[in-house]
């Protein structure tokens, strides 16, 4: 090796030097690698495998355990899908349909979509008659109220905080364990529940889709232990749950299909096998032998498995790749030098090579480059506009020029990324380096990530993180990410650019007060472009959720409102006899 190296080296030094500068100088303009149709999107908006047959065992292969299945604590996209589609019902839920229709509301426990009064400050829901738990006892409005109260308990952290943000008298409330109750949730009878809000909230029905609004009977509540055995109000109940090993669901015979328009409950049993290696899951589903034919994957396809999938038409036909609707952004600390200077921030926007970031996150087949802040689903036409028109690989000259205008020729800074985004961090490091911005990478464990970047004093200048709207409205995106009034010194979340801009905040208040949803949507979209021009962040990519399903799977599609996770309300088997018993 050594000898050959030396001989070759002398001959190659000159050509390589040329080659290297040629590469660093500039890529072919935007889109030169584009092969036309994206090979991974053939199944977009479609249901895989036709209509399932009733029966059989559906296997879910997972590399992890659920974060929380307790409805008061469940606030992770895939877990919410699993929980609310299989184990518990909420006041309202999303339609079980692929594409944009999955963002529409439909009734679940409630028999209507909610009645508002008092200028959208009071919301009343009426429960359907004849709803039952897994032991046959009736589901009551009081049980829904009880779980809303549980979500305030410090012993049960982790769940959505919409109730805390909007309900009257929520400040300082510590949950029902000490016998105290919330007066702002009223239950005049067993089937009626009334919520009183501090401020008008026209989109409150969307919030009632969240697991916070699922029923938990007080007699079954075991505090933190409830996480291991939630009591079922949905089509399945837990037969056994060995944490990080296996969860087995069997039919809840007291669930009545006639009260449920969404859940189809095709399989007889659902087995979640947890803690497997991600690559081994991919390999098993590519082969799809034996019981694996009736299996689906829980987590995203690994980037290194993509060549094995996309090059085989029969395997590719079993790949779902719905958008997660989360915009990943390079967020800059606008509160201090050097990123308090808008020219430096814009230089970063121009220096960022989104193609490299895209490749690092799994390639263009599984991600879309981001050209705006809010994901495409919040824009008319379902696509992000491109107002800045920066080339995909960046514009290094323009970035250098902007830096020069700001009086800087070179910069040293650092970025925090979560462990899983290490490759993305390296892509950012490399691309900003082209414009003379030297970046050091700090990798942090996923669990400590938000904690670390939430410490606004000690955090790095740059952070790579995103935001997903909780429901299809600009009001669940821009105010969370760019309202300076939500900034906290510690435990800061959402607004990681620490962006505090008076004009923006004023406009947000105006839009929030709008009663016409159409008009509000337009206004959010316009505001998006205005914020982008002020460059608090550089949007990078909108990821997709590539999921492989077995050959015997039917009725599978990625649900847009659950971050592209398979809708567990409708998935089932083509031939139940082929699955393991």
């Amino acid at each position, binding site marked *: 090796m050594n000898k050959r190296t030396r001989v070759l080296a002398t001959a190659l030094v000159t050509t390589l030097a040329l080659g290297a500068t040629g590469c660093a100088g500039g890529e072919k303009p935007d889109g030169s690698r584009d092969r036309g149709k994206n090979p991974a999107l053939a199944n977009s908006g479609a249901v895989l495998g036709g209509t399932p047959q009733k029966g059989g065992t559906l296997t879910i292969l997972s*590399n992890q355990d659920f974060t929380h299945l307790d409805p008061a604590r469940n606030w992770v996209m895939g877990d919410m899908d699993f929980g609310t589609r299989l184990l518990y019902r909420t006041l309202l839920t999303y339609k079980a349909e692929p594409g944009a229709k999955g963002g529409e509301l439909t009734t679940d426990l409630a028999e209507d979509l909610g009645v508002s009064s008092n200028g959208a400050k009071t919301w009343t829901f009426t429960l359907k008659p004849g709803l039952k738990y897994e032991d046959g006892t009736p589901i009551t409005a009081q049980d829904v109220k009880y779980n809303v109260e549980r979500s305030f308990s410090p012993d049960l*952290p*982790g769940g959505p*905080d919409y109730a805390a943000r909007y309900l009257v008298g929520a400040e300082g409330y510590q949950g029902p364990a000490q016998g105290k109750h919330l007066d702002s949730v009223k239950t005049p009878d067993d089937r009626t529940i009334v919520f009183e809000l501090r401020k008008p909230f026209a989109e409150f029905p969307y919030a009632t889709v969240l697991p916070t609004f699922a029923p938990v009977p007080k007699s079954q509540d075991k505090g*933190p232990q409830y996480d291991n055995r939630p009591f079922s109000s949905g089509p399945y109940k837990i037969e056994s749950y060995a944490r990080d090993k296996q969860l087995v669901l069997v039919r809840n015979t007291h669930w009545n299909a006639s009260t449920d328009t969404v859940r189809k409950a095709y399989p007889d049993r659902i087995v979640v096998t947890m803690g497997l290696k991600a690559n081994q899951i991919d390999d098993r589903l590519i082969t799809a032998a034996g019981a694996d034919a009736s299996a689906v994957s829980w987590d995203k396809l690994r980037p290194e498995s993509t060549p094995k999938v996309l090059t085989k038409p029969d395997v590719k036909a079993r790949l779902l790749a719905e958008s997660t609707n989360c915009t990943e952004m390079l967020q800059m600390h606008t509160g201090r030098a050097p990123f308090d200077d808008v020219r430096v921030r814009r230089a970063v926007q121009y220096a960022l090579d989104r193609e490299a970031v895209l490749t690092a996150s799994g390639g263009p087949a599984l991600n879309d480059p981001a050209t705006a802040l809010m994901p495409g689903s919040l824009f008319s036409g379902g696509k992000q506009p491109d107002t800045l028109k920066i080339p995909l690989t960046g514009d290094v000259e323009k970035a250098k020029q902007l830096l020069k205008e700001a009086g800087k020729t070179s910069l040293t800074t650092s970025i925090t990324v979560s462990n899983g985004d290490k490759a993305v961090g390296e892509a950012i490091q490399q691309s900003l380096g082209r414009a003379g911005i030297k970046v050091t990478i700090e990798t942090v*464990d996923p669990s*400590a990530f938000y904690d670390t970047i939430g410490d606004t004093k000690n955090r790095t200048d740059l952070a790579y993180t995103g935001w997903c709207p909780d429901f299809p409205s600009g009001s669940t995106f821009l105010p969370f990410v760019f309202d300076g009034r939500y900034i906290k010194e510690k*435990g800061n979340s959402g607004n990681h650019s620490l962006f505090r801009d008076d004009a923006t905040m004023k406009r947000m208040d105006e839009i929030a007060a709008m009663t016409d949803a159409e008009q509000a949507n337009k206004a959010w979209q316009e505001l998006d472009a205005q914020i982008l021009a002020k460059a608090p962040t550089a949007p990078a990519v909108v990821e997709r959720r590539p999921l492989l399903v077995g050959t015997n799977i039917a009725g599978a599609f990625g649900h847009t409102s659950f971050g592209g996770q398979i809708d567990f309300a409708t998935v089932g088997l083509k031939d139940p006899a082929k699955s393991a018993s």
Partner: protein
Amino acid sequence: MILYLGRRLLGVLGVLVAIAAVTFTIFYVLPSDPAAAACGKSCSAERLEAIRAHMGLDAPLWRQFADFVTGIFTGRTMGSGQYALHCDFPCLGYSYENSQGVWDLLVDRLPVSASLALGAAAIWLLLGLSAGVTAALHKDTLTDRALMVGAVAAASLPVYFTSVLLIFGLIRVAGLLPYPQYTAFGDDPLSWATNLLLPWLALAILYAAMYARQSRSSMIESMAEPYIRTARAKGLPRRTVVVKHGLRAGMTPILTIFGMDLGGLLAGAVITESIFGLPGIGRLFYGALSTGDQPVILGVTLLAATFIVVANLAVDLLYAVVDPRVRY
């Protein structure tokens, strides 16, 4: 003997307390805050404080340690009211990540790690010792050379490399074995064995190589001892000499290493478990690190240390049985 045992047990206890104290201190200064991790995406300062108080993180370090140590012997109750958590003897704390007591978690995962460790140990003892003894008895022959070259090479392969080769060869190409997915022995012994065979082999190859090298040299050494010559001179059959005298004396150093190795592996083979996705203690530990689950980290460290010191003690006691020259 009794006195000796008492003294050793006291020593074991001291070592464990020291290890607990060191681990506790290190993880108290851990930059990640388990309360914040539990609190989630959008956490107010006031809620964070409430959670910290609930987890007992607001007390001073010595107080938390004292609570922990007394809890092991007397059990503890955390929180109050309807949601109070009772953690009975031996209470090693409560994992908020897993919503389970640490002791229960360890008991739950131990069978997996023990299955892995004991199965692999059986294989590596069989392979390693027979290779070592064969090589020693045929010292400086071709057999000896071949065996030792193989052993040196195998000992130089990291377990994650061997694992990949095994996965590729036995699963992907030959299709002989399933992808490992742990089944409890009690549920289906056959499936237990077929699913564990690959991890056993991956782990055993490395250890077998080391044991072959070790047992060869001990064997050569013990066969040169004067009493072996005496035994031979007495006209005892070769087999008896080798097995009853040579092997017995030659096994003493092996026993020491075996105790350490097995003790270490029982508390989780982190890399092997993570490669094959086995839900053992090693993976529990690795997961706890990434979620900052301090009670589990502490519990696993203590369990591992316990296994090691107990294994050492057991080995020392066994010496008396194996090696007639040792007396206490």
